[in-house]
């Protein structure tokens, strides 16, 4: 194969993007576990992970710029690099939102939650699966998987609506629950945003493979 060094660098770019996706997924998982289990040490770990995600974000972006400046990538390589530049923005935002959830863990750790957390961990699971499958679709150029994965954002949105309505009821019934309930509403909102970013990941994959810009949800 011609341009061996160039192709090695493209593979490395892909690997680092996948690594970033894995970290973002773990951050989401651990942030919600820390919230549910009121585990401050785990929340601190999530806050620390954000720095790793940010530094990967910068190094992947630098690699993209170097490839564009030095190698004049074309066609699917060009689309891969432009998609990676978008994907890392979404992953970085997912990392930030996981950090926000971890901060809420720290704020709510001293008293039990107003109710056992069921729907919020469910939202977290769907988000993790969406990130995971979007990154597999990215790795294997699987447009079908990307489209299917994006659809799951509807489930996250529906759960968000349900959680929000439930928490409002708690707040109406007992004003002393407002502090905790509003924290939990924010967590649900952050997870709903994570679902949107995962949906964006899927759209970037479709563009990378087909060159078509699509709104999947």
């Amino acid at each position, binding site marked *: *194969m*011609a*341009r061996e060094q*160039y*192709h090695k660098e493209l593979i490395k770019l892909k690997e680092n993007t996948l690594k970033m996706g894995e970290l973002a997924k773990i951050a989401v998982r651990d942030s919600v576990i820390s919230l549910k289990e009121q585990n401050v040490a785990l929340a601190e770990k999530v806050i620390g992970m954000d720095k790793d995600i940010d530094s990967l974000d910068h190094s992947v972006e630098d690699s993209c710029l170097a490839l564009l400046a030095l190698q*004049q*990538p*074309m*066609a*699917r*390589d*060009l*689309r891969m690099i432009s998609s990676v530049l978008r994907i890392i923005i979404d992953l970085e935002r997912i990392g930030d939102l996981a950090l926000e959830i971890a901060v809420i863990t720290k704020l709510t750790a001293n008293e039990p939650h107003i109710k056992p957390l069921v729907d919020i961990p469910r939202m977290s699971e769907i988000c993790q699966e969406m990130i995971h499958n979007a990154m597999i679709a990215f790795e294997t150029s699987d447009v079908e998987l990307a489209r299917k994965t994006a659809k799951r954002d509807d489930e996250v949105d529906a759960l968000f609506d349900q959680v929000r309505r439930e928490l409002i009821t708690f707040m109406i019934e007992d004003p002393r629950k407002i502090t905790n309930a509003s924290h939990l509403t924010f967590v649900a909102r952050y997870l709903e945003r994570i679902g949107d970013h995962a949906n964006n990941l899927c759209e970037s994959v479709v563009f990378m493979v*087909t*060159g078509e810009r699509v709104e999947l949800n």
Partner: protein
Amino acid sequence: MQNKITVEALNAWFGAKHVLKNINLCFQENRITAIIGPSGCGKSTFIRCLNRMHEVVPHAKISGTVLVDGRDIYENGTDPVDIRRCIGMVFQKPNPFPTMSIYDNVAAGLKLNGVKDKRILDKAVEESLKKAALWDEVKNDLNKSGVSLSGGQQQRLCIARALAVEPRIILFDEPCSALDPISTSKIEDLMIDLKEKYTLVIVTHNMQQAARVSDFTAFFLMGEMIEFGDTKQIFKNPKEKSTEDYITGRFG
């Protein structure tokens, strides 16, 4: 936009070797069309068929039609010399006539066509050198030898020489492969200026050059035209896998 050149079912051979296979392609007026492909894919042979230069090679053969403004240039009774005046060509290595001055190089084609009037010649030389973006650099040295110029200047001199006989189409066969980057960018800028008045076809190994200057790109492989399209589409999202593999450096 009108088609200036229409190529239909073009085949070409060197002896028994079939080097161009059933090429169908249209070139739009006032646009630059680039032809890319690996060495030996037939791209140079192809443009040499567009001004009847292929047939000057011994044992070379051709079939099919090449319509320029609707007229077949291979029609019986067509004078190849007339064709080559309408369809100028610039080659890979600058090839000014070595014994001639800059002035005579540009005027050579007109003199050959019987133009003797000094005022007409002066005007044509000046205009052609201006169009070729060389006038300011050589206007005080018109009697110096053409080969005293730098490589990039010599190439622009060859372009001026091609322009002097007022062609409608100019074919460029790897015009920058012997030039440094600054001369290359001058030729590229010049090509973009020239497309206002002419139809341009460029054969190039340099894909970045094709991407920079052309409006349309055709990809050739082993004597066949694999893909033709808008240059942006070809380089962002080609339809054919072999086009993609070539432009992303996976072969060639």
